């Protein structure tokens, strides 16, 4: 079955009782029990809810995994997954990781005794050199946020297997439509489903999908006990968003390619970061592990003043923190998405005041180009 068909026909979308083609929203906390013997039926919505389960089944199919779990936010997902680790454990994490993940690791999990080293995972020797006796996992973003750096997933998985490490990957930028990390050997894939999977800037939700029973039962336990679950209405909205994932992703990508090429030629733009651009050192690797480039572009202007001027003058893209939506969103990473990272570390990562991130929406690319053109003047 082609990806685009699979998105719509995972076998979970129709209500088996009534035949309703849109799955019901089970807005309920608890379920009547027939007797003392619980035969795996629903009990309490924190533990399992039919709408959430249906969404989780769909996500499992899309990521080609063993089981998926829906959480109250992308960060709730990431935090729940980090609870797999114990004090004394050490993690290796992509250096230009999302600011919120950085904050959770350095501000919270460090206090619980979990240690993190942030490294450039695009260089395999770099990963190997930083593995310690207590290293338990490698956490990746590829492409990374916001610099769209590419990590070789297969190679990293191989290395992780040699050292018996768990591999976790944030697949928010690509979605399963363009990249399926579990097929490449990753153990746990994470999504801020607020972004492309939802696609409409209208909900906050996260998801994780795993490749085996053992991880599934551990995460199921954490989801239920930590209780950071996604609400039924949001699960339903996410299923609704996923139905148009293919058409949206194709259009995001087509427009992003046009914009990346245009920006690349613009005299005020110093550097453009987009996976398929020839100057991206990982473009070849990316092509081997993903089916597309997605809709996020970052670019560096000649000066921070030029960057700020542009952000003040754009009319079509919304100046906001988020991405992956039908409307274009423009972000100033140094004060918005990555402001939770201390300035010296942020600068070191290359997230300076000249950098702008653009999430290309579904507007006509000609209009977006014209708008950026006037804003850059």
């Amino acid at each position, binding site marked *: 079955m082609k990806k685009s068909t699979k998105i719509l026909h995972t076998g979970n979308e129709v209500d088996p009782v009534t035949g309703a083609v849109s799955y019901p929203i089970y807005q309920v906390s*608890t379920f009547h029990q027939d*007797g003392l013997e619980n035969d795996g039926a629903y009990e309490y919505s924190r533990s399992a809810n039919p709408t959430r389960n249906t969404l989780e089944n769909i996500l499992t199919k899309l990521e080609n995994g063993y089981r998926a779990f829906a959480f109250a936010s992308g960060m709730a997902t990431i935090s729940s997954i980090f609870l797999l680790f114990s004090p004394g454990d050490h993690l290796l994490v992509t250096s230009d990781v999302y600011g919120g993940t950085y904050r959770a690791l350095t501000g*919270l999990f460090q206090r619980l005794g979990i240690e993190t080293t942030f490294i450039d995972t695009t260089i395999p020797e770099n990963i190997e050199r930083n593995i310690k006796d207590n290293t338990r996992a490698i956490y990746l973003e590829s492409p990374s946020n916001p610099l769209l750096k590419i990590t070789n997933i297969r190679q990293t998985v191989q290395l992780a297997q040699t050292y018996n490490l768990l591999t976790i990957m944030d697949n928010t930028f690509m979605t399963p439509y363009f990249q399926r990390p579990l097929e490449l050997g990753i153990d746990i894939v994470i999504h801020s489903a607020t972004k492309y999977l939802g696609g409409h800037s209208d909900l906050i939700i996260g998801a994780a999908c795993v490749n085996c029973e053992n991880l599934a039962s551990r995460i199921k336990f954490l989801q*239920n006990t930590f209780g950071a679950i996604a609400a039924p209405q949001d699960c339903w909205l996410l299923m609704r968003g996923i139905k148009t994932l293919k058409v949206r992703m194709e259009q995001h990508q087509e427009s992003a390619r046009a914009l990346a090429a245009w920006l690349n030629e613009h005299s005020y733009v110093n550097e453009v970061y987009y996976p398929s651009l020839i100057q991206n050192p990982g473009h070849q690797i990316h092509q081997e592990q993903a089916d597309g480039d997605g809709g996020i572009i970052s670019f560096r202007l000649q000066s921070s003043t030029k960057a700020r001027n542009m952000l003040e003058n754009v009319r079509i893209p919304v100046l906001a923190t988020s991405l992956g939506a039908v409307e274009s969103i423009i972000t100033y990473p140094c004060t918005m998405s990555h402001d939770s990272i201390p300035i010296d570390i942020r600068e070191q990562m290359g997230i300076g005041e000249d950098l702008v991130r653009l999430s290309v929406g579904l507007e006509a690319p000609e209009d977006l180009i014209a708008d950026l053109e006037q804003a850059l003047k």
Partner: protein
Amino acid sequence: MELDTLAANMGVGYDCKGSISVPIYQTATFQHPALNESTGFDYSRSGNPTRLVLEKGIAALENGNIGLAYPSGMSAITNVFMFLGYNSHLIMTEDIYGGTYRLLNEILNQYHIEATYVDTTNLQEITNAIQEDTAAIFIESPTNPLLKVCDLKAIAQIAHQNNILLIVDNTFLTPYLQNPLQLGADIVIHSASKYLGGHNDLIAGLVAVKDQEIGDKLYFWQNSTGSILSPHESWLLLRGIKTLGIRMEKQQQNAVSLARWLQNHPQVTRVYYPGLPDNPGYLLNLKQARGYGAMISFEVRTPELIPRFLEHIELISFAESLGGIETLVTFPYTQTHGDINEETRNSLGINNRLLRLSIGIEDQKDLIQDMEVALS
């Protein structure tokens, strides 16, 4: 302002178009008016207008200054425990909700957050359990499922003399009947899925605190771990809270009648309800609360009566939860408290003859008739 007035008017006047009901801000992000300017809302995980009305609302109802809304009661509890930090010790009510027990014994223990379980109706037991690293005392009053009443004021005093925080789970009585922050508690927690929501139709957790510094730290945890309540559930919860007073009154009225009826039933050997004058916590509860709530636990003569009862109830639903308008019955031994080891359960009195009732707003004659049939 009285609680009924506060609750009914929660969110009124918030919307700039004059909508009496707060809009559901089903949005992920907010447009910045200009670079480095904010409307006060940037990203819904960090702050959402619908959630904010609810959070301010619970703070007002509990006489606190800061409120926080979580995707479940367990999420609220986990955030509070994690805020206490690595290497801290807790003193807990011994017949605590099974989910909290599981959290402490199977997840938080690995982060060296350890708990001592004591009978918190006994002040000496609390004092004896205090260690150098004790960070908090966590109590439920009345407790779940045995409805034991703990002296909140006296425990707050012990806590503060020892530089320890007092955390109270106020799910059973709600701010309508009891205000732990006024009695000296530092943090109040709710499984808002229960009475505050009141309709068995949502899962949510709430926290209220007085102290700004504690509030700020809890907010940092909520935002960083992304443990937030969605706009739709926030709105439903606000809607539920508006009828809290009238629901609680009716549920309590029904519960008093049913507790008395159960007490006189030949198949019933024991009734736990703080509204019965012969309950050991009756007077203490009256001193610190404005009512007894609508949770009743009772013990039947033999374990064989349990499956028979559960099979024969028609009106009452056998389901895990409480606080809704529909009457529910729970078998704590395997349902809510199944995660606690058997020996402990039995020694606490959570045995295979115990049932817990959450009394709803049905007509009490129908409820009595349903139980009469099921107990015969």
